[in-house]
C-alpha cells in the first residue's frame, strides 16, 4: 500500500512540475531568428576576434541584424562571405583581403647582436630586460612570440630568426600584432606592394651600425616616388594612404640598404622556401 502511495505521489509531482515548466516555457519564450544559427554554422568557428567581435556567434547576430556585412569576416574569405550573403540575400560587402606584414628584415645574418640573452625564451621577456639583446632597439627579437600566438599556424620562424607569414594561411586576425612587444606587425591590404621593412628611428651611420638592412632615413625613396606618395616621419618613409593607388616600384630602386621593398606577394620568399623544403 505504502509503495503505491509513493509512486502515485511522485507521478503527481512529475505532472505538476511538467505543467509549471511548460507554462514557464510559454511565458518566458524569447524568439530568436533561426538564421543566426544557420549563419553561425557557415562561419569558420575559429572565434578569433579578427572582426572585432567576441566570437563567431556575435558576428552572425550582427550580420543577420544587418549591422555589418559578411565580408568583414576575413578568416572565411570570399567563399564563406558569398555563402552567407546568398543565404541572407544581402550584399557581400568589403572583401579586401588583408594580411599581416612584418616591418623588420633584420635577421640574425644582417643585424648586430649587442648581448647574449640566456633567460626565458620569449620576446616579451627579453624585451623587458633592457629592451632585448639586439643592437637595434626596434627590431625583431626572433624568439617566436608571434609564432606561438598564431591560431592558424600561419607564422613560422626561419633559420635567421625572422617570422615568415604564410600569405595563404594568414587571416588578418591580429593576434601577432598584439603578441609582438616591438609592434612590428601591421595588418594591411594584401595588394599593397610598397613596404618599409624597418622601424628604426636611428638615422644614417648609427642605423647601419646596428643592422645592414636598416632604413638610414636618406629619403631617396621619397624623392623617387610620385609626389605625395611617401613622406618622412621620424626617420621612416610613411605611405600616404590617399595616394595609395599611385604606388610604384620606382621608390625602391635607389634604396641603399633595401629597407623599402616592392613585394610581389610573399614577404621573405627565400626564407619561406626553407619550410617547404623540410
Amino acid at each position: 500500500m505504502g509503495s503505491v502511495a509513493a509512486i502515485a505521489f511522485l507521478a503527481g509531482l512529475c505532472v505538476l512540475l511538467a505543467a509549471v515548466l511548460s507554462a514557464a516555457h510559454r511565458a518566458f519564450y524569447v524568439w530568436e531568428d533561426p538564421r543566426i544559427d544557420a549563419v553561425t554554422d557557415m562561419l569558420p568557428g575559429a572565434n578569433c576576434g579578427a572582426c572585432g567581435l567576441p566570437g563567431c556567434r556575435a558576428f552572425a547576430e550582427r550580420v543577420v541584424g544587418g549591422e555589418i556585412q559578411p565580408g568583414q569576416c576575413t578568416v572565411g574569405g570570399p567563399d564563406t562571405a558569398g555563402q552567407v550573403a546568398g543565404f541572407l540575400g544581402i550584399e557581400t560587402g568589403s572583401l579586401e583581403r588583408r594580411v599581416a606584414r612584418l616591418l623588420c628584415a633584420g635577421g640574425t645574418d644582417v643585424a648586430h647582436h649587442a648581448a647574449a640573452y640566456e633567460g626565458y625564451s620569449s620576446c616579451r621577456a627579453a624585451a623587458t630586460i633592457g629592451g632585448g639583446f639586439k643592437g637595434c632597439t626596434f627590431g625583431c627579437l626572433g624568439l617566436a612570440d608571434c609564432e606561438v600566438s598564431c591560431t592558424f599556424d600561419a607564422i613560422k620562424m626561419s633559420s635567421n630568426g625572422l617570422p615568415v607569414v604564410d600569405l595563404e594561411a594568414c587571416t588578418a586576425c591580429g593576434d601577432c600584432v598584439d603578441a609582438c612587444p616591438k609592434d612590428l606587425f601591421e595588418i594591411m591590404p594584401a595588394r599593397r606592394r610598397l613596404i618599409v621593412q624597418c622601424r628604426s628611428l636611428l638615422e644614417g651611420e648609427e642605423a647601419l651600425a646596428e643592422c645592414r638592412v636598416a632604413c638610414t632615413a636618406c629619403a631617396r625613396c621619397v624623392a623617387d616616388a610620385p609626389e605625395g606618395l611617401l613622406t618622412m616621419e621620424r626617420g621612416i618613409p610613411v605611405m600616404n594612404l590617399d595616394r595609395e593607388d599611385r604606388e610604384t616600384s620606382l621608390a625602391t630602386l635607389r634604396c641603399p640598404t633595401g629597407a623599402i621593398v616592392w613585394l610581389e606577394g610573399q614577404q621573405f620568399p627565400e626564407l619561406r622556401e626553407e619550410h617547404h623544403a623540410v
Partner: protein
Amino acid sequence: MSWASARTFRHGVHPGDFKELTRNLPVERVAFPDVLTLPLSQHLGAPSVPVVSPGDCVRRGQLIADSGGYVSSRLHAPCSGTVRSVGPAHHASGKLVDAITIDRDRASAQKLQAMRPGDWRTQSREEIVAQVAAGGFVGLGGAAFPTHVKLTPPEGKHARFFIVNAAECEPYLNSDYRILLERTDAVIEGIKVLLKALGSEKAFVGTEDNKADAATLLRERLPPDLPVEVLVFETKYPQGAEKMLIDAVLHREVPAGRLPIDAHVVVNNVGTVAGIGNMYLRGEPLIERVVTVTGPGIRDPRNLLVPVGTSLQHVIDHCGGIHPETRQILFGGPMMGQAQRFLDVPVMKGTSGILFLTDQEVVERQEYACIKCLRCVDACPVYLNPSRLGALAKSRLYEDMLDHHIMNCMECASCSFVCPSNIPLVQRFRVAKGLLKEQAARERAREVAT
C-alpha cells in the same frame, strides 16, 4: 640585541648578502667624465623639458631641464661645460630616450652654482616642498618617484609617520649604508626638514642588522629632542620594499592597490633624505649620487660618488676595468637589477649600484616540473600563490591570472630565488603583466573610441 628590537614583515627570503666587497670602503669621488649624457626620463612620470639648447654654456648646478608636468622632475647640470646636443641616446631601460649631452669644460674648477633654498625653519610646508621640487629630487632607492609628489599628501590625508628607508635589502649594495655612516649630518638635517614638510609626529629609520653599526652611530648623533626612532630588523629580502618596511616598522598592512599615505605613512630612501639635507646645508641640487660598484667581475669594487650622466664605461675605467669572465652587468642589485647591453648608458638618479657578475654566478639552469613544495608561497611578501600563477602563465592563461591577483606582484623575484625546480616564475609574471597592461590599455582606447 638587535634581533629583539622589532618583529619584521612576514615571508621574504634570505639571500647571501655579499656586502663585504665594498662594506668598509669610504665613498670616493669619481673624476668628472669628458661627456655626460642626461636622459630626460630618469624618473617616473612625464619626461623633463629641456631649457637649454645645443651650444649653450652651463654651470655645475644650473637648471637644464624643467619638469614636464606635476609628476615629473627637474634636471641640473652635474658639471660645467657646453651643451652638445639634445637627442636620442641609450637609456638603461634599453629604449632610445631623448637626452641632453654636455661636453665638460676642462678648464673649469667645477665650482657649484649653489641653490638658495633658504632656511627651512622659517619656511611653510608648501615652500619646503617647492624647494624639494626645485632641487630635482626623486626616490634614490631605484624607482625614482618624484619626491615632491610624495611630500604632498592628497586632500584629507595626513602622514602621521615618516619612515626613512635604510634597509638596503638587495645583496651586494652598500650605498645607503655608506650614506648613513658618512653623511650622518645630512641625514639628520633631512629628517628634520621632512618632519616639518610632512607635519608628521614621529620619524622612524628602518635598517637591517647587517648595518647595526650605522644605526648605533645615527642613534648617538641624533639630537635627543627629535622624535626619531632607529629600528634594526633581521636582514631579510625584500625589507626595502615600501610596504614591507611599513609592516616591519608599524605593523600596519597597506592594502593592495593603495598607497602608503592611506596608512598615514610616507617612506623615503635615506639617500633622498640625505640629498634634501644636503640641499639645505650646502645648496646642492640632485646632481650626483652614491653608487656601489661591486661584484666579482670588477677589478676594484668601490663606493663612488658619481655625477648623474656619467657613462658606465667611465665608471668601469675608474674601477680598473672588468675581468674577462664577466658575463652580466646589472644596474641595481642582483634580485631586481636591470641587465645592460651597452657600455655608453649613463648612471641615472635611480642607479643605486652597478653589479658585475661572472660565469660563476650567471649559470643557465634547467627548468623542472613544479613539485608543489610551496616554498614560493612562503616566500611571497604580498601573499600571492606563485606556484599557481606560474602554472597559469606557462599555459598562457593570462586573464585567469588576474583572478589570482597577479597585478599585486611587485616582481621582487623571491619566488624564482627559492624555487628548487628553477622555474622562471617572476620572468613569466613580468611577461604576463606586460601583456595584461597592454590589453587593458587597448580596451580603454576602444572604449574612448566608441
